[in-house]
């Protein structure tokens, strides 16, 4: 209980004093996760839309694979990205390992299947409703995609936030490819893991509370958007 109490006190003091280390970690966490989610949306929304209304051989298998990829273990993704970006790997020449870019790549790989699979589910339902109308107008593939994505925008905002939740809370992949280097690749989750292993439980808990608050705000935002506009 002492640790819990100290954790809350520590969190409050870190936030109130606008601790520069905390701000730096928070800033990097947001930058990495938001970038990963943005890239995932750019890829995942169109992929999800195409899978929702285009019929082609192997479509069902692709959907099953995509749904399975939603549960990708972060450490496995981290390991794969590590092998790809390490000096002996195919992309080693770019020197990306232990940089925020490597962390963005890892999180993008984790989040894109989630965005694409959930987008497909939402847009498939909408496609059942709109298909006769859009077929009647002989709408182009692009027009179909734009119509579905725009009309499902509020539901897709929730998908986006679900992806963000996964990214911001993820630790395994960013630890492996980022290396948890102070002021370079240290994000909230890796900092919590480090402080815990050092026995500095109150600081770890403080950071945990900040992380929880961030996720809570994100989820509240998602709920607000859904109830207001749906």
């Amino acid at each position, binding site marked *: 209980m002492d640790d819990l109490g100290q954790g809350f006190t520590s969190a409050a003091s870190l936030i109130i004093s606008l601790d520069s280390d905390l701000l730096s970690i928070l800033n990097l966490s947001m930058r990495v996760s938001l970038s990963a989610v943005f890239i995932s949306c750019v890829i995942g929304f169109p992929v999800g839309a195409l899978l929702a209304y285009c019929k082609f051989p192997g479509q069902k298998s692709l959907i099953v694979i995509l749904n399975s990829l939603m549960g990708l273990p972060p450490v496995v993704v981290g390991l794969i990205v590590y092998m790809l970006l390490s000096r002996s790997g195919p992309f080693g020449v770019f020197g990306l390992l232990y940089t925020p870019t490597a962390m963005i790549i890892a999180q993008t790989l984790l989040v894109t299947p989630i965005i694409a699979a959930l987008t497909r589910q939402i847009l498939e339902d909408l496609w059942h409703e*709109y298909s006769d109308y859009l077929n*009647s*107008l002989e709408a*182009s593939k692009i*027009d179909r995609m734009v*119509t579905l994505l725009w009309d499902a925008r509020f539901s897709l905002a929730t998908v986006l936030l679900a992806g963000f939740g996964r990214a911001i809370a993820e630790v395994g992949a960013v630890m492996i490819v980022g290396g948890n280097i102070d002021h370079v690749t240290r994000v909230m989750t890796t900092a919590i893991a480090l402080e815990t292993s050092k026995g500095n439980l109150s600081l770890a808990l403080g950071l945990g509370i900040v992380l929880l608050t961030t996720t809570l705000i994100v989820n509240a935002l998602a709920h607000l958007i859904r109830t207001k506009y749906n």
Partner: protein
Amino acid sequence: MRTNNKILPLEVSRLNYEINGHKLIENLNFKLDTGQISVFLGPNGAGKSLTLKLCHGILKPSSGNIIWSSDLSEKSDETRQSHTMVFQKPILLRRSVRANIEHTLKVCKIPKNLRADILEKALAKTGLNKISNLPAKAISGGEQQKLAMARAWALSPKVLFLDEPTTNLDPSATISIENLIKEFHKAGTKIIMTTHDLRQAQRLSNEILFFHRGRLLEQTESDKFFANPKTKAARAFIKGELFW
């Protein structure tokens, strides 16, 4: 809106449509020409809506031919889509009334400089001006069907397919929609519609195509059909005695 119906007649021959071996449409043969409101009449499950969708092209036939008189890809300023369709349950986008019509114009590649004018005319024609900024999903059922008609009006089609457009509407909304149908007809648009409402068929139609169990049993002038139906099924339907 004034259309010149060069795409008609529409000739349907040996048309079949089946799903998983079940024949839903069987050997249809008919020809539809300009100048008349043609009504597909028949009980539920007769194949009226399927035939309409097959003619419109949103369903592919299992076999048979649907032949229009001219190339449908030719479009003019007056006619922005050769044929369009209004569905029994209006399919409306999650946008405002105005944005729904704008979407139709945009998808049909209407030049930007013409869209505002067409939009205002379509709203005025259907009396939706005052509610044009409301979400389409929030307006009444009658107004939603008017919006579907407004979208069709905006395209000045040569042929308008209507799939039981007043089934879910109250009498006053039904009259509004029927008046709009007459306006389309006056403007030269060929009306091809389905209904199982005998009174509506009598009010609107010049020509009846009577369907039963996926087959076309009669194609005749409306007056003759109601005065003296040729088939036993049609006679039973008019008397309200035809059951599936």
